[in-house]
């Protein structure tokens, strides 16, 4: 694709812009900001990736991954407000999931250790973990606020915090994992997944594209489980103190 062809694709931005002006939806500013930001961010990333791929040095790969983890953590922090130390919990979770995934992928030779493979797959792992952590924290905080009386009831009977929080924690983990599992059930039937479509457009053999997509699906499933379980089990003790009392979410 040339830059001229890409410029023509801005017609797809002009249509919603026209609609929002016509219907006075008040979204024109957001559409313009979103378009400009996506162009600038993706072009910058494109040039950075070109540099990293050409340099082909582990330090740049690690730096790139850390940058992605930092940005993803930053995104999740806001949703975790009320839980002290959530930044480090999310940061640690992302590092753990990424490290384990890469250990398996590279250790068993499932993917070659080339930046062209490692960085895009890491991006998908980290991105999915970020979304899953957001989903989990949203649901978990909601559950904790709704079940505070049941939590105190169990504590009042002599139950330990892990017992008192068990139902809320399980429910939040289930809720955050279900969309991933359900999405995988209809994969390929309703829509062709993004990565597979991208590979096919790029000229790859459809079967090879399917195999890569399956790999990503399995990784996403693992991300969903690990991210919600890790964030959940690190976060819940912060809702209690040493005297086995429920202190709840703490907003400034």
């Amino acid at each position, binding site marked *: 694709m040339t830059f001229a062809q890409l410029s023509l694709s801005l017609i797809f931005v002009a249509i919603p812009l026209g609609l929002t002006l016509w219907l006075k939806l008040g979204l024109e500013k957001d559409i313009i900001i979103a378009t400009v930001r996506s162009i600038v961010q993706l072009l910058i990333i494109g040039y950075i990736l070109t540099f990293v791929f050409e340099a082909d040095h582990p330090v740049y790969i690690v730096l790139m991954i850390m940058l992605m983890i930092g940005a993803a953590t930053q995104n999740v922090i806001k949703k975790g407000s009320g839980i002290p130390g959530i930044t480090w919990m999310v940061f640690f979770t992302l590092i753990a999931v990424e490290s384990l995934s890469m250990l398996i992928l590279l250790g068993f030779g499932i993917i070659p250790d080339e930046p062209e493979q490692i960085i895009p797959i890491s991006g998908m792992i980290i991105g999915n973990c970020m979304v899953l952590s957001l989903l989990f924290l949203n649901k978990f905080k909601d559950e904790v606020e709704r079940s505070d*009386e*049941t939590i*105190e*009831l*169990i*504590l*009042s*009977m*002599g*139950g*330990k915090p892990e*017992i008192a929080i068990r*139902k809320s924690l399980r429910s939040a983990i289930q809720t955050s994992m279900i969309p991933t599992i359900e999405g995988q059930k209809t994969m390929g039937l309703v829509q062709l997944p993004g990565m597979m479509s991208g590979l096919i457009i790029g000229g790859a053999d459809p079967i090879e594209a399917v195999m890569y997509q399956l790999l990503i699906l399995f990784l996403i499933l693992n991300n969903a489980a690990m991210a919600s379980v890790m964030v959940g089990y690190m976060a819940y003790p912060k809702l209690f103190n040493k*005297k*086995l*009392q*429920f202190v709840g979410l703490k907003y400034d």
Partner: protein
Amino acid sequence: MNIIEFNNVSHGGILHNITGHFRESRITTFVGPSGAGKTTCLKHINGLLSPDAGEIYYRGENLENIDIIELRKEIGMAFQSSPMIAGTVFDNLSLPREIFGDTLSKERAKRLLEMVDLDAIPLNQNIKSLSGGERSRISIARTFVNRPKVLLLDEITSSLDYTLVKEIERLIVRLQREEKVTVIWITHDLDQARRVSDDMWFLRSGELIEFGDASFIDETENNEIRQFTRGEAL
């Protein structure tokens, strides 16, 4: 004999220098206007909250030195909204055992239902199908699973109609006589407090204004309490 004693207890700007005691095997009610700190005070008794200053003694021992789990097994609490877990009547009755990986026998569960006059309700009935009054009684029965020495009741009749209120009152008084438990009961209903109390605590704005034999509520010279008993705003 005093079973629980508060010594200069303060908590988070809600309770201020509370000093008072509860007699064993008596019913003590907490009365006072909204925002007096009654629930906060009650939660201190089984360690759901701790004082910022002062001490609480249970059978002469500072609560800080008592194993909190053992204390909570001895001091049962029924909450205002009668919170229930999803499941059956039996699931809810066996909760105090289940949290310790233990089981409650069906026979004991049936006896507990009989105790609160709910023997007509099957153990496998879904808790959601019960009325507010039935849930209140299940909540009370549940506090007896661990055979508590002290029973804390937080406005357990506030959402019930008059007939049920009287039933629950009779039930608590009967259980207190039979099981010899110490009952500490928050109520916003002064007539209820008069009917059931041996002793009374009158709290206002986090301060214990007066406590002792319940007769003080009608005999006191304290203007605040007299205003309250006349139904005037404090």
